[in-house]
């Protein structure tokens, strides 16, 4: 069959770009800001014109327009009402009919799967128990990541002599960390912002699978380094620099497949950091090819512990899938000091849309079932449990801790703090906010001084809110909320959901 070179697209614009001619001063800020070439300056008419077809709804132009002349809004779906053939499915079929490819996308699952955080409510003290005012009383969020033994042992036995040292522990001043965002997927300025904010707030950021740029080694004490299936940028100094080493098995946005970084994003600097040639695609294999089963994982865990002389916790991260509880139990038994579950709504720089939108399970259910299983097996204390994928607020964090999480990774929330408007174009490399791109012109849009401040502000704000919620519950140390599901109640959940979450329905 002959391929026809040009084809009229049947896709209609998704956004309406309205320009108020009374306000527009034709300054061309929008022309310069838009990375999708929506705006164009017509010299003859001394007017700025827009091509709505290419607008992705990132709102960069509207936010930067000095005259507030631009309004970007969603166009009503062009198709007739149809609950089955909703616009998303229509558009996807049209795109594939026009390209014949797999649809790629960025960010997290945008489907309407139930968000359990929004069906869980928190408790507060009334009468029988005083609430605690965090403005007047100490309120402790300190969290330790690492394996805890069943009991404290003493050198002299029976409480005599010194307490025997524990396996390595890493201290967090609040239970929120920045999740894996690899160099190449995001820019160095973004990573620097994350690293500096984590250092300032006493928490950790995660390199993702793209190695650690030489300029960021100084933040090593606050860094989690990843070892993923591509082994990009893994070498002794990289492991030595970190606070925690994380083995990446899977990712919530694309369970079962590896990370893909297109060659266009592999610049000179990225190539040096990843230890691959410039311009080559960085394609992580779907599995780790030395891990085809649980005992293989145990070998890698222990190889990394050997390599780092048992001085730092080793983490294992998986995507939350159907048998997470059993898998997590195996991970703990294979020696992981921290296990990470990444849920259905976890985001990515690039993933096949069908995988992102259909594979994996909601993080709330995975968290609850894993915490419960590890307790049933009496091994919950042997590893810290960290979750990520869809945490949007301090309340989500508090609910996750009550369900059983030791700490929470945030990704999208951090990027939104930096400017991300969740337009889902990460895979294009054209991020208008300068976040998910390696284009040197665009990466300048993130100033690490300002970025670090915005991120630290977010954590500071959440930390205050978490303390306020804890105090309301009459709790002054986070460990007393961790796994304490009596402080949660479900609203509008069915019996099976309540059972899995281990919470009662509100009113009972």
């Amino acid at each position, binding site marked *: 069959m002959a391929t026809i070179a040009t084809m009229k697209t049947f896709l209609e614009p998704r956004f309406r770009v309205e320009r108020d001619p009374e306000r527009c001063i034709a300054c061309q800020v929008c022309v310069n800001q838009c990375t999708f070439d929506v705006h164009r300056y017509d010299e003859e008419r001394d007017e700025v014109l827009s091509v709505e077809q290419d607008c992705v709804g990132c709102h960069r132009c509207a936010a930067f327009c000095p005259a507030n002349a631009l309004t970007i809004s969603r166009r009503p779906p062009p198709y007739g009402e149809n609950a089955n053939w909703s616009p998303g499915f229509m558009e996807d079929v049209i795109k594939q009919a026009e390209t014949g490819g797999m649809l790629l996308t960025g960010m997290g699952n945008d489907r309407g799967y139930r968000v359990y955080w929004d069906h869980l409510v928190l408790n507060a003290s009334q009468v029988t128990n005083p609430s605690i005012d965090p403005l007047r009383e100490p309120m402790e969020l300190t969290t330790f990541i690492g394996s805890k033994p069943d009991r404290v042992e003493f050198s002299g036995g029976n409480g005599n002599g010194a307490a025997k040292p524990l396996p390595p522990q890493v201290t967090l001043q609040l239970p929120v960390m920045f999740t894996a965002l690899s160099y190449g997927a995001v820019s160095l300025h973004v990573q620097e912002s994350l690293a500096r904010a984590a250092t300032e707030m006493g928490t950790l950021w995660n390199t993702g699978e793209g190695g650690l740029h030489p300029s960021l080694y100084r933040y090593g004490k606050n860094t989690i380094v990843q070892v993923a299936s591509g082994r990009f940028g893994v070498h002794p100094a990289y492991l030595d620099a970190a606070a925690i080493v994380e083995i990446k098995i899977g990712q919530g946005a694309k369970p079962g497949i590896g990370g893909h970084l297109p060659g266009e994003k592999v610049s000179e600097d990225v190539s040096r950091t990843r230890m691959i040639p410039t311009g080559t695609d960085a394609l992580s294999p779907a599995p780790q090819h030395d891990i085809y089963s649980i005992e293989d994982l145990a070998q890698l865990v222990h190889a990394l512990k050997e390599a780092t002389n048992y001085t730092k916790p080793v983490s294992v991260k998986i995507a939350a899938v159907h048998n997470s509880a059993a898998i997590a139990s195996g991970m703990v038994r294979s020696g992981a000091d921290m296990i990470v579950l990444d849920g259905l709504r976890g985001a990515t720089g690039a993933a096949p849309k069908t995988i992102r939108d259909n594979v994996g399970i909601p993080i709330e259910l995975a968290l609850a079932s894993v915490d419960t299983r590890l307790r049933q097996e009496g091994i919950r204390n042997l590893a810290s449990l960290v979750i990520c994928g869809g945490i949007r607020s301090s309340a989500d964090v508090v609910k996750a801790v009550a369900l059983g999480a030791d700490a929470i990774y945030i990704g999208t929330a951090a990027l939104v703090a930096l400017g991300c408007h969740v337009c889902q174009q990460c895979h294009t490399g054209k991020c208008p906010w300068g976040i998910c791109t390696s284009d040197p012109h665009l990466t300048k849009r993130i100033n690490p001084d300002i970025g670090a401040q915005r991120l630290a502000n977010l954590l500071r704000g959440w930390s205050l809110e978490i303390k306020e919620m804890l105090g309301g519950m009459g709790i002054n140390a986070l460990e*007393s909320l961790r796994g*304490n599901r*009596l402080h949660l109640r479900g609203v509008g959940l069915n019996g099976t959901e309540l059972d899995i979450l281990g919470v009662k329905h509100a009113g009972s």
Partner: protein
Amino acid sequence: MRDLSRVSNPYRDDKVMDACGLFGAIDLKGRRFSGERVIEAMANMRFRSNGLGGGFAVYGLYPEYAGQYALHVMFLSGEARRETEEFVRSKFALVHAEEVPTRPTEGVADPPLVWRYFVDAPERRVDGVSPDDYVVARVMEINTSIDGAFVFSSGKDMGVFKGVGYPEDIARFFRLEDYEGYLWTGHNRFPTNTPGWWGGAHPFSILDWTVIHNGEISSYGINRRYLEQFGYSCTMETDTEVVAYTVDLLIRRHNLPVEMAARVMAPLLWSEIERLPEAEQGLHRTLRQVYGSLLLNGPFAVIIAHRGEMVGLTDRIRLRPMVVGTKGDMLYIASEEAPIRLVCPDADETWIPKGGEPVVGRVGKTFRRMRLQPQPGRQTVKV
């Protein structure tokens, strides 16, 4: 249907919530004294309770059977008693059995039948189970499998007496003025439900450990789930139960000294730990890291007792009251100063311990006030 007359948490609340009055007295020379003054002290705090639970623990109670485990058992039927006695005879060497003497008392309604059995447990057996563990397992067996029978006291040379009513009435009912002991604790309560069941009153006891408790533990949910990992099943659904099991786990099974166990239940703040001398930081940090799930958060005051020892402890920001008094060899711990002054008008000293500061009285040891709080000195302020 669940028999509501026999549960302490009839509505299946997250936990039973109550406010309470506590009193404890110990003669540090181990001399036995009558409980009359303890009963008076409890009556003095009557307004702290509403008649829905009172009880006492007495140590040095049975010198004539000091070597035997004394099982106090309440029965709701003659059938339960027959079944239990058969079980006791088959599992233990029964030395003596008798009904606990009682008298009809106004304010004490529908009492169960209460008996006591003095038994010997088999010595260490081939399977390595110690006599103590053997007794614990048999007590759990009776309490969970024999309908209408409940063992509420199982230690040596000590006993618990408790029921639904004001403690002074419960004391009259059990004729406590006839007994002597070197250590007494007493408890009254104001629960927010109406338990009709005598087993739900304090003290809670296993072996010779007893706990009386005033408070509502906000960390109950995780304390309970952590203890379940170690095989405890919290059948009573009260937060006092988790205090008792925490003490059992830390002190009896993990061999921690009581002062360290207190530091697990009411730890120093992280900022206080950082101000301790370098050498002490490790211990406090390790205890908190390992046993963080046993931190008892929220308001509580407890008096924990076992053979020869009485310990008072409040939560680390002291949200429930506790007063200590001394007079010669006597040490008193109470919810208020008034009952101490009532039974001991010329006390040498009374004071309110700091939150989380354990007060430990041991027979044969001079009482020393413990000050584990870091000394306020030079502090580094983080900017």
